[in-house]
């Protein structure tokens, strides 16, 4: 979390960032040395799929969907955390990358119980949208079907780990923006689970401020508002850039 663009900028006495020229998907572009390849691509209307990435939160690099190829390097790199170098030649949509992205999505779908048909986020889900975008018609890997309890103990929100993709947006928004650090990840590997406090019912958490930021940033139906039914949970993300802008203004 020390490596967000923001903290790179704020290092003492850094001279103004250099402007570099680079090539993305055949287009000659320029970008600042302290902006990630993803940011530069977006400025130039080049779309790269992402999932764990969310503007306003630190970079994570876990979902691997934004992998891009840099010529001269065999292994693709995450666009969200890679900074450009002068003359870099980048490819964002090769057959190989699209193929990797589809397989990564397949792995995500196989990991938990993503039953879109009965999910509060059906139709408003980033995982579902990615499947459409990447043309994923079916999952070849065996579904793991873990047995996970839904936590309805909170007065206003529901947590359904069956839909969780471990993007850690909830963990990051709670620690970095709200400052409560109610969420974290217990265990490791395939047994990783997002938890509140000492792995207790959300409703009994003493650190949670019930601000709901985690719910709004969650890309799937893993966190939702109580009272929403199938396909009714629509998330509102615009608060985050606004909130961060307001805070920056106040400081200055």
């Amino acid at each position, binding site marked *: 979390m020390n490596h967000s663009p923001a903290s790179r900028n704020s290092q003492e006495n850094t001279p103004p960032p250099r402007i570099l020229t680079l090539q993305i998907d055949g287009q000659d572009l320029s970008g600042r040395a302290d902006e990630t390849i993803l940011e530069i691509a977006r400025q130039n209307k080049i779309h790269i799929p992402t999932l764990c990435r969310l503007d306003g939160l630190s970079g994570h690099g876990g979902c691997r969907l934004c992998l891009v190829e840099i010529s001269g390097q065999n292994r693709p790199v995450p666009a969200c955390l890679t900074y450009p170098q002068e003359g870099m030649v980048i490819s964002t949509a090769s057959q190989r990358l699209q193929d990797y992205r589809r397989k990564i999505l397949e792995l995500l*779908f196989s990991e938990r*119980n*993503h*039953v*879109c*048909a*009965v*999910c509060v986020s*059906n*139709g408003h889900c980033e995982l*579902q949208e990615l*499947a*459409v975008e990447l*043309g994923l*018609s*079916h*999952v*070849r890997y*065996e*579904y793991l*079907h*873990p*047995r*996970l309890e839904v936590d309805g103990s909170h007065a206003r929100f529901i947590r359904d780990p069956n839909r969780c993709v471990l993007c850690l947006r909830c963990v990051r928004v709670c620690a970095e923006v709200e400052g409560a650090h109610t969420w974290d990840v217990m265990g490791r590997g395939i047994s990783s689970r997002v938890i509140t406090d000492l792995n207790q019912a959300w409703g009994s958490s003493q650190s949670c401020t019930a601000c709901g930021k985690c719910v709004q940033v969650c890309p799937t139906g893993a966190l939702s508002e109580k009272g929403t039914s199938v396909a009714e949970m629509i998330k509102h993300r615009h608060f985050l850039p606004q909130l961060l802008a307001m805070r920056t203004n106040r400081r200055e």
Partner: protein
Amino acid sequence: MNKARIATTWLDGCSGCHMSLLDIDERLVELAEQIELVYSPLVDTLDFPEAVDIALVEGAVGNEDDLKKLQLIRKQSRLLVALGDCAVTANVPAMRNAFKLEEVLRHVYTATASSQLQLPKEEVPPLRDRVRPLHAYVEVDLFLPGCPPPSEAIFFLLSELLAGRIPDLSAKSRFGA
């Protein structure tokens, strides 16, 4: 012109995909001129026929009977389409996979039942340990996800196939839709 021999069936599902098929409405007439429906829950045929051109299969594989049917369909059809989320992902029927089969049976047949508290032994095909999608068992040629897939997408699928083209279904439906 020879009419295309089409079969449809449902395995472990809710028949909603067939409802969506019927929702094609008046254009069904248009289709009917080009096809011969040789087997379907909607028509009166007992045995799955041979030399089927296109088989639309709804539902997941949940019991031994589903599996036997599916294998027969695969053997006797040129093109097998997984129709809808249950066939493609195992969907809702697979929600029991997180539990042990005995737990599921006990819950359904004794814990929540009001009479005849016993597990079925005869006349009901034995459940398999896990509910799985079609492609876990047989080669599937086309996948049309959706719960159910929109009738528009089913119509597109059929008309493209009848026109001799393999349809690109990627923008036509999605998981859960």
